[in-house]
């Protein structure tokens, strides 16, 4: 029995530019129909991983396959649509001309009206692409990516130039497209987006996959919960030895314990009488991400 090949498959893929190892031995598989987020800070290797995936760059080591074939072949067969991060508007064309041209390259494109509707640019069809706002251009680029009705849709930081409202509209469109059993891979450095819109999150850091799972699994992997209480003058000695505790952090007069088993930790704290101002909270995805990537706390404002 032959197995249907996976949509995306990286095996030990590596790519070095000069002396920077942008992608450092990545192995991953994406099943058909999955919506996967590639999450990482700027410079984590997301765009390079996407270039390898699209066949824009060849890996120095390892292999990359789309639908069981080399990426170029899958691209030529019309299985792939992509929204590239650095692409700007193509001047002196109307939205309709551009989208229709790209759609016409694919064997089984979506009807033009459907593409324009999905991307929310129906009323912009006759406008010139180079005379649109940043957000509108972004939507045109999305239309270009999905015009060919590709089985695999790849979006490199698709919401980078969008405001909150436009973001929500964008993700609604993406979901509507993914619903038809298509595979979607998008890269982002917004945790909330990865958590809200992907079935699965791949965390990329310094060219390596450091975590792979649902948002829930990542939170758990990073150290389930946070237990905090007022020290009220007592020392912190021995806290790290309490059941479940992974790490201890002191902020002002409060101790913050990261724990795998908050119940056991709380009971032990109660035994010590250290329960003033006790709080138990699940670790946020932010904290999970920081724990996974070991990065200093510098959140981007959405």
């Amino acid at each position: 029995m032959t197995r249907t090949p996976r949509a995306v498959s990286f095996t030990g893929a590596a790519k070095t530019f000069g002396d920077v190892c942008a992608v450092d031995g990545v192995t991953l598989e994406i099943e058909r129909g999955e919506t996967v987020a590639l999450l990482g800070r700027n410079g984590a290797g997301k765009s390079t991983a996407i270039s390898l995936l699209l066949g824009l760059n060849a890996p120095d080591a390892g292999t990359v396959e789309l639908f069981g074939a080399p990426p170029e072949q899958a691209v030529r067969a019309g299985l792939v649509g992509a929204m590239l991060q650095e692409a700007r508007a193509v001047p002196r064309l109307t939205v309709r001309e551009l989208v229709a041209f790209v759609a016409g390259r694919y064997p089984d494109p979506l009807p033009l009206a459907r593409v324009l509707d999905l991307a929310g640019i129906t009323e912009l069809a006759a406008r010139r692409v180079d005379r649109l706002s940043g957000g509108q251009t972004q939507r045109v680029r999305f239309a270009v990516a999905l015009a060919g009705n590709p089985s695999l849709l790849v979006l490199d930081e698709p919401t980078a130039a969008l405001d909150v409202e436009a973001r929500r509209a964008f993700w609604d469109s993406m979901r509507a497209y993914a619903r038809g059993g298509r595979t979607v891979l998008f890269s982002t450095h917004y945790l909330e987006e990865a958590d809200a819109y992907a079935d699965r999150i791949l965390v990329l850091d310094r060219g390596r996959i450091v975590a792979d799972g649902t948002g829930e699994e990542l939170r758990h992997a990073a150290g389930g919960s946070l237990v905090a209480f007022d020290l009220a003058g007592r020392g912190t000695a021995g806290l790290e030895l309490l059941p479940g505790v992974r790490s201890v952090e002191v902020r002002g007069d409060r101790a913050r314990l990261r724990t795998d088993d908050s119940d056991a930790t709380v009971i032990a704290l109660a035994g010590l009488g250290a329960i003033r101002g006790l709080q138990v909270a699940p670790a946020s995805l932010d904290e999970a991400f920081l724990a996974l990537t070991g990065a200093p706390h510098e959140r981007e404002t959405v």
Partner: protein
Amino acid sequence: MRDMWDYLRLEVRRTLRDTGFVIGGIAMPVMMYLLFTNIGDSNDADWRTASMVGMAAYGAVGSALNTGGGVAEDRALGWLRQLRVTPITPRRVVAGRALTGSVTVLPAICVVLLAGGLVNGVRLEVWQWALTALLLWLGSIPFTLLGLGNGYGLTAQTAGVANMVCNLGLAVLGGLWFPVALFPHWLRSVSAYTPTNRFAQLGVSVTQGHAPAASAILVLSVWLPAFGSYAVLSYRRNAGTV
């Protein structure tokens, strides 16, 4: 093949909507032609005809090089990269671009020849008009290749400068603006080796009713593969980065 024709149509449309191209590639040559042949004591029928061919050639060279400028611009925009993630093959993209060049040289050639016939009263046999236009069209191919070489090999800004230098330098040196007869002797001998000089000579010989000189064919047949190789090398060197 449909890929390539659609791409050709798309790029021709983009070029013709480029105000810079319409002014620099079409309006300028015809205005210069009318100016250079109607100022002072220039009531010379031979000069009107020779300058017509020279300015048509100048317009064709500018338009051909402009194709390369478009390539450099598209590389910078990421448009060629976007095309690489659609099913159209890179080979068809390059072929479509080269063909774009051979279409967009036509307006300059036609408009200058029309100005010659309708405004400046140049009189030629029908076959001479047709053959002059045809030779100017075919003769522009090496310049399209030169432009593509610049477009694939250089950054957008550098390619723009390189194209302008090539365009003006080769036009003046090749005698497209002023008759070579006005040049000092040493410059005249340099001019004889330029592709532009021999390019214009193709057309001029037809307007004079005789076949192009063998030396013109010879010089052009050296430039054609030279510019062709330059285009191929530039493309190969940067194929991975477009």
